[in-house]
């Protein structure tokens, strides 16, 4: 099939490619989102059920204020940085669709 372009592939082959690319990117996105969700949805629970920790004083701040108002930004930027790096790597590995299809046919996973 070296003379075909990616646009001329069959619907099944498009589906295989899409499935492969989406599965790897999606798994990465979900992983990072899960860490973020634990942080952002967990903090209100700490505030509600562990107020002694949340309201403990640190240099005028309360622990929860310091975490949410200051530290939360660098933490999310670090998550974003991790995601972008990993995501670029996945894309680099998926660019060659012939290899992806060939690997799929032989049952192997690209880049693993």
């Amino acid at each position, binding site marked *: 099939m070296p003379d075909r372009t990616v646009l001329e592939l069959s619907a099944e082959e498009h589906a295989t490619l899409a499935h492969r*690319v989406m599965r790897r*990117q999606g798994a990465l996105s979900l992983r990072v989102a899960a860490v*973020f969700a634990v942080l*952002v949805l967990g903090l*209100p629970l700490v*505030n509600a059920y562990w*107020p002694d920790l949340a309201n403990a004083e640190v240099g005028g*701040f*309360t622990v929860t204020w310091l975490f949410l108002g200051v530290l939360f930004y660098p933490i999310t*930027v670090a998550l974003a940085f991790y995601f972008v790096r990993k995501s670029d790597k996945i894309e680099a590995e998926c660019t060659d669709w012939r290899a992806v299809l060939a690997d799929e046919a032989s049952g192997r996973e690209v880049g693993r």
Partner: protein
Amino acid sequence: MMGISWIALAFVVAMVGATVGLGFYATRKAQTASDFFVAGRSVSVFWNASAISGEYLSAASFMGIAGLLMKYGYDALWYPVCYATGYLFLLLFIAGPLRRFGAYTIPDFAEGRFDSPMFRRIAVTFVLFIGFFYTMPQMKGAGVVLGAIMNWPYWVGIAVVGAVITFNVAFGGMKGITFVQAFQYWAKVFAISVPVFVLMSVYGGYGKNLGANSGHKQGTAREHELPYDRLHDVAYIGQDEERQVEPSAPGHTPVVARDVLLKFKGHEGYPANGLSFSPMDVTRLEFPKGVTFDKVLPGPFAKDSKGERLPFRDDYAPGLKGNEGGDGLSVPPGGVLEAHPFVNHDARTTEHYGSRAAKVEIKEQTTAVLKAGSPAPNAPADRAWLRPFGPLSAKHGYPLLYTYSLIIALICGTAGLPHILVRFYTNPDGRAAKRTTLWVMVMLGSFYVFPPIWGVLGRNAMPWLYANDTTDSIVIRLPTILQNKLLGEILSGITAAGAFAAFMSTFSGLLVSMSGALAHDIYGKILRPKSSPEARMAAFKVSAVAIGVASMGLGLLVETFDIAKMVGWAFAIAAASYFPLLLLGAWWKGLTKYGAASGMLVGGFASLAAIVTSMLLDKKIVTIPVTPLVRSLMEQPAIWGVPLSIGIMIAVSLLTRSSLPRDISMKMLRLHAPEEMGLSKNYIEH
């Protein structure tokens, strides 16, 4: 603050001049329709990130967060945090795929993903709804800033700013704005940070000012302080039918250091005409022109016009006195209102169970002098303000629910804002779109640390802004407390210019995307599919003017709503309409046009209806009995709106599986495949 601040005015004029000038300079380079709509799609990652950040940092970010944080304390921190970190969701699920798909706008995406021109028509409606919700607070910002520096009435500020920006957009398009937005991001970061460093060098740092509210202050009525569960403080009071909404836990409120002149708008300014006094200390207000109170709450304090009714004994409830022989409901000119704290009293056990705030509503427009040493009326008590689940989230009695709903609205909403998403198409490819988002997060995080500092300093230094609900102006007014008046004026001028940059950039962006939706989607694709590019440009200009005028009209109605809260509502609507469309559209092959359209419409309109009803209830325009739980869910609808929308999309899609486009696999691949695979396609030809 009664006259015109000439220095501030000079800064604002310079900012407006630079914005308009840069816009016109860049317009000369904008030639094609493609340039006009999305700036030629050739902007570097750094500048694109600056422009996205510049467009995103609205009046809500620049003024509203500081005001909201000053007013409500900890709970308001969720706004800046989620405004910034919502971009993580955008990055993880939407930025790359959307850029790769090669559509300009959400309606483009809707049409391309589902092969349905009909869906375009439906999808475009929420560009307008979200847009108008977003422009209202920008207009309020304009009215407040010009009110503070020019002493102009609210509407004049709106008219002037609205006209300038509308004119600029109608004649500049967006190419102008890419440059200008990037410039404005840096202007805003400078304006929010530099003055607050100067203020902190004089009045102490972030931590020190925050720590001042940890409840160690002494008060004159301290003996009334009793253990009290703040969360139970939302209850019906006494004989009065009205629900008391301000938690009035015992605890101190900031005290004004000197006499301060306050203006009240009376009935017309409802609810900002209400005064809730400290439950801990005596408050004294002198009324040079006299005043009439409409309501005196809680019940035990009310005296009838003959001054006869006093259900509580005088020693428990000395209550409100007009010193000049007033009867408690009206104070003659020059009279002083004294509001004493009182202790609630259980008649059966004769035990105190907590002290409460006295409350009045001012009937007519008047001025008052808040006497030195008085605690600021309407200020939440220290502990409620400093800790989570304070007066914002606990207002209706379900603080945890309210907090989660707010978080969902802001985070999911960020990923569905039409005027921000359109900017992602100016990235050269999907990889650059992700890099840009990362940079946006860095830039926004650096900005959003600062507005809360303003709110904290403001609470300690200018607590009288609580009294007539003008905390939204804190970033403009705070610098004027400096001993060095000239320095104060200059810093205030810098923040005023920053605020101008904020509402100008966001309003411009919204105007572009709303006018674009009208001109490009409704006129160009639906009404006159065969229209020439020139005709579409003309349609764009006409739309810009019409939408600009409508926005100004809406802005006039919302003076009493908090800027940051209104923007939060725009997010909630986006979260329940566009966010599910984009998320499922990009990641679930099985989403059909019927599923997407019905989920978006039901989720979006249900949220819109809940929010509008909630606003009307706040304004007392409608009165329908709702339980506190329902009220809470109406004010923050995302917690049910987003799942509702997603649920309907999935259910209807499963029922209409046969309507999937035949080349759906190709479309999914185009959304996710790296550009090097050779699949990208642009929906508008250059």
